């Protein structure tokens, strides 16, 4: 039974230059009985080596394409290998692998589970404002109450991948998936996760935020 479960749960970790943190994230996911695939998105450090040593399957993008593209590569591979449940988790240690069971519980009730971080003082102020802004715009345009639209910690059933498959190469994919969930009325639940910010200079920038908002408007218009 354990082997069947291990066969079906896959954690996808898109990574770029995370040689310090990746091993810990991989080990944490393996401890939760998940298969782990790390997509090294054009790193110029030892991310791939560290991930492989920790026990992950490593797919290497020869050039950096972006988070959206890396996640898609991981999902395509995992589904090919028989994944039934897919968990997407960041490589920088922001997400605790110990929360994986919460996501798996959520998948018993819905097709996709969105993680949400509390908008508290642990989150940088600019990020808090940006996240709230995007949450508000998404709620108005799509009618969905996703508390943290930019949280990369999510889980979904492999069978809905084709429905939510995104075109965005970068961070915009987080919002693109939400727009598809809303338009195709895919069932979703949300689960609270801890807010951990090790590096305040990585992740989405103001420019990314503007791009995300413009993309959200575009997806609303194009239906």
């Amino acid at each position: 039974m354990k082997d069947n479960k291990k066969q079906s749960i896959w954690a996808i970790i898109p990574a770029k230059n995370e040689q310090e943190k990746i091993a810990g994230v991989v080990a944490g996911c393996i401890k939760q009985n998940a298969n782990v695939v790390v997509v090294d998105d054009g790193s110029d450090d030892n991310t791939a080596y560290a991930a492989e040593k920790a026990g992950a399957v490593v797919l290497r993008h020869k050039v950096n394409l972006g988070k959206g593209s890396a996640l898609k590569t991981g999902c395509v591979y995992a589904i090919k290998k028989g994944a039934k449940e897919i968990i997407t988790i960041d490589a920088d240690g922001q997400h605790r692998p110990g929360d994986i069971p919460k996501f798996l519980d959520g998948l018993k009730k819905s097709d996709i589970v969105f993680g949400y971080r509390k908008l508290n003082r642990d989150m940088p102020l600019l990020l808090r404002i940006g996240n709230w802004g995007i949450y508000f715009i998404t709620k108005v345009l799509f009618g969905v109450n996703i508390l943290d639209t930019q949280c990369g910690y999510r889980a979904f059933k492999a069978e809905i991948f084709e429905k939510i498959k995104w075109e965005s190469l970068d961070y915009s994919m987080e919002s693109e998936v939400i727009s598809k969930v809303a338009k195709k009325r895919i069932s979703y639940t949300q689960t609270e996760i801890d807010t951990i910010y090790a590096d305040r200079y990585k992740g989405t920038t103001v420019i990314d935020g503007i791009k995300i908002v413009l993309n959200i408007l575009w997806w609303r218009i194009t239906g």
Partner: protein
Amino acid sequence: MTYTLKIIGILFAAAMIYLTFLNFKRRSYGKKSFVLWLLVWLFFMFMVTFPETAYGIMSGLGIQRTVDFFVMGGLLFFSVMIFYMYISVKRIEKKVEGIVRRDAIMSHEKKASK
């Protein structure tokens, strides 16, 4: 149009014709693109040398100054060019993504099978 501006315009068009020809010889693009760009620069050179030929079109459009006509025409032309380049870049982006993904998965499977 003042003679200084005409001379500058003609010299600019001549320089662009030369660059167009040079890049054609370097196989940066094919015959079709070369002829298209050559026609663009020759048209530019013609309009700068004989701006009075545009007076008919200008009066039809309600434009009084030749410079306004050139600026508007230039804006329209470059808008189209930018849109075309955007589409081309998007297509290339998709192709690169596909290649990189296929390569990543195949490299791993090859390594795993050893």
